[in-house]
């Protein structure tokens, strides 16, 4: 019924999909799996019209299809239900179901027909809901049902569902599965994307695994084992572009560190950062971890596992509800970013543009932001001292900019990342929390950043690196923590780590 073949899609600097094929039979539930960044969402976006493919063919019902916009996709009978749900909370169920297709007479909405259509679609989905209720008064499971009714109203034959069960209780999941079976019994096809591998045999017939933007296999769910799936998701060929020089604690310099980076006076035995039973309202639950000088500690896990939330607790961006953070033996438990910075913790956030840099400002202003106290007397900033310091770091970290007065918005992702790093090194931070350090950085610049990380740790700085890129985590870390559901699921030494171990822990498959 649906056939996608030879699909190719590139974004600047990265090939998201390479010759990917996917087909769906009528009445089938076809599961799509793959780790973060494997290309699942991109494939779905191409199908739903949110993205255009660069190459490849799509056939629906045996006829070639061009999907240039979401409206085209809808017209062809493709409906997509995203994880975040695309409903308008302030409107009623009926209004949402018929959004964009409201029955009207000369411009005035025909309320009677609106309710009638909505009730019909809800019945088709096998759902009992009052169509006059506001969507924001419904629970997640019910909202999902509204989405399904919406898809049915639009006569969808292909329904793609992205992580539908992530927020549901067991009973709601059963109900969802029975609704899906109803849909397929009527001849529709469902594409089901999920990380919850254990549920899959209960609902799907076939499964396709994507890895690094390519097909890794299409199998029958009744015959394949979970372990096999994990293996297909994780297997990797090349791991040698990570120039990690592992720093053993005894190899730390005894002589004073190079002037660029902070020296390391404390004995290597005591940890630089120690976190005990840290919990927060954002979902972080009883996390314990340590980072030593000169170490890169990787934190892996799926999206939503709570890693960024943990980082925010450590750097004082959010306030923890319980637990302790100790730096160099002194308890600091930051309640504000200022506390964390004073304790020597620097934060390189995931979203540089929104949380890291002030985009319209210059390089020197951005580097200076937390450090103004260093270069000012009685509140007056010495512009010369600020510029000199910025120029020094530009040289030290090889930041590519025509001058320190250049706006950071005009510089590349890799350069911007170095500017954030410069800021914390200038603040003499000894622990850096890096959330997705190479996101939005092109391949060539990534290696440079890894080299920088090596340099920085050789001078005694410790790095806590959060990354969704499994090879990066495995290649650059000395030790790895895997998070899942706000807790630490696994801690292991990098030398003993494999993709599968990490992925299994992230998916919750280890006992």
């Amino acid at each position, binding site marked *: 019924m649906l056939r996608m073949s030879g699909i190719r899609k590139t974004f600047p600097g990265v090939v998201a999909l390479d010759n990917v094929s996917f087909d769906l039979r009528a009445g089938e539930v076809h599961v799509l799996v793959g780790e973060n960044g494997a290309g699942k969402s991109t494939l779905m976006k191409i199908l739903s019209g949110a993205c255009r493919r660069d190459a490849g063919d799509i056939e629906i019902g045996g006829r070639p299809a061009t999907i240039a916009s979401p409206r085209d996709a809808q017209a062809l009978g493709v409906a997509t239900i995203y994880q975040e749900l695309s409903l308008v909370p302030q409107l009623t169920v009926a209004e949402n179901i018929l959004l964009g297709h409201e029955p009207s007479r000369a411009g005035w909405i025909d309320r009677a027909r609106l309710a009638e259509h909505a009730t019909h679609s809800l019945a088709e989905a096998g759902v009992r809901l009052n169509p006059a209720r506001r969507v924001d008064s419904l629970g997640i499971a019910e909202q999902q049902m509204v989405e399904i009714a919406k898809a049915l109203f639009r006569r969808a034959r292909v329904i793609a569902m992205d992580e539908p069960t992530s927020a549901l209780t067991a009973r709601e999941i059963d109900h969802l599965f029975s609704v899906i079976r109803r849909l397929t019994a009527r001849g529709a096809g469902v594409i089901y994307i999920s990380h919850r591998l254990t549920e899959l045999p209960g609902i799907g017939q076939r499964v396709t695994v994507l890895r690094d933007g390519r097909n890794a296999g299409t199998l029958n769910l009744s015959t394949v084992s979970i372990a096999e799936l994990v293996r297909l998701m994780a297997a990797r060929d090349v791991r040698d572009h990570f120039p990690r020089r592992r720093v053993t604690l005894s190899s730390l310099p005894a002589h004073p560190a190079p002037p660029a980076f902070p020296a390391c006076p404390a004995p290597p035995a005591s940890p630089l950062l120690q976190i005990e039973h840290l919990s927060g309202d954002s979902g972080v639950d009883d996390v314990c971890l340590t980072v030593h000088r000169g170490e890169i500690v990787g934190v892996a896990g799926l999206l939503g596992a709570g890693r960024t939330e943990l980082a925010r607790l450590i750097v004082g961006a959010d306030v923890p509800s319980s637990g302790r953070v100790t730096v160099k033996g002194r308890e600091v438990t930051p309640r504000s970013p200022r506390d964390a910075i004073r304790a020597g913790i620097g934060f390189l956030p995931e979203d540089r543009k929104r949380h890291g840099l002030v985009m319209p400002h210059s390089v020197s202003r951005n580097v200076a932001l937390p450090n103004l106290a260093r270069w000012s007397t009685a509140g007056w900033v010495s512009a010369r001292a600020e510029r000199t310091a910025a120029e020094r770091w530009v040289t030290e970290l090889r930041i590519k900019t025509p001058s320190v007065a250049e706006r950071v918005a005009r510089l590349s992702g890799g350069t911007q990342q170095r500017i954030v790093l410069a*800021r914390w090194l200038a603040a003499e931070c000894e622990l850096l929390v890096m959330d997705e350090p190479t996101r939005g950085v092109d391949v060539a610049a990534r290696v440079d950043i890894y080299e920088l990380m090596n340099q920085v740790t050789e001078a005694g700085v410790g790095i806590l690196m959060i990354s969704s890129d499994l090879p990066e985590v495995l290649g650059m870390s000395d030790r790895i923590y895997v998070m899942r559901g706000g807790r630490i699921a696994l801690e292991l030494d990098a030398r003993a780590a494999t993709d599968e171990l990490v992925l299994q822990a992230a998916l919750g498959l280890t006992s």
Partner: protein
Amino acid sequence: MHRGRDGPLQSRVQHRRRGASAAVASGWNRYGAGRFAAFAGLGSLCLLLWILTPHFLTLANILNVMEQTSINAVVAIGMTYVIISGGIDLSVGSILALSGVVLAKILKASAFGANPAGALGWFPLSLALSATLAVGAAVGIANGVGIAFGRLPPFIMTLGMMSVARGAALLVTDGRPVSGFDPGFRSLATGSLLAVSAPIVMTIAFYLVAHLVLSRTRFGRYVYGIGGNEEATRLSGVAVRFHKTIVYGVSGLTSATAAVLLTARLNTAQPIAGINYELDAIAATVIGGTSLSGGEGSLGGTLVGALTMGVLRNGLNLLGVSSFLQQLVIGAVIIAAVLVDRGLKERRR
């Protein structure tokens, strides 16, 4: 891009050449384009008026314009700070009125302490002035607390305060103006320094100080940072809420300062003074190149913006244009100025 009158601009460019040439390029882009547009606008306007009427380019008229603009210019100082920090202050007119009547009441009360020659001693005068400024700053800080700690949108908080302060002014005076002050106080408006009238000198002095604070102090940096990216600034360890509060306090302070100048000039403090002053202040700031979304802007630009509006009004008056049409023209000029400024910013991005 050099066109129109650019005398003062030329020297600025030359000054910049002392730095690295690359710094010139990016520094020019950053500060020059916005203010250049404002200067060019003002320059062309003056040129046009010079052609159209002989009365414009007389010394008396120019000084008149500057004196009349001084009130708005001072209010616009605080407004510039607030807008650069990413907010807005609609209550400046009301704070001006309130501070003015407070000042008037104190002066009237302390006249009993005047010496027989009729000149108010400097001590009571400075006390009265300090109290006035304190009232303005306090109302401003109240705005800031509501916005920074109460997390109210600046538009709403200052809108509410606009009414509150206005009501307070009316209460204090029972709705009636307070007039007739001591010549010692009035000399703030009537006096002069080196043949330049006192208000003009003071306005320039205020601008100088405010500019230095904004561009050279940590506080100034934080104001730009909060407007440019509040979260990033917070994550850099800056006490954002505290500094935001102070910024609104500055705005209240400059409104109170303007109230002092106005009361001295008119010899009257009215509870209904300052109506719509916030619009003029915002217009001056925006014409001067400050972006309403925050993070960018300069006081030099605001001064040019205020002068532009003053010159425009003056010119239209001299040309005998009806005041209704004047309002239309001024509004159109504001829109045009922002469009041009936006267009320039887009081009160099």
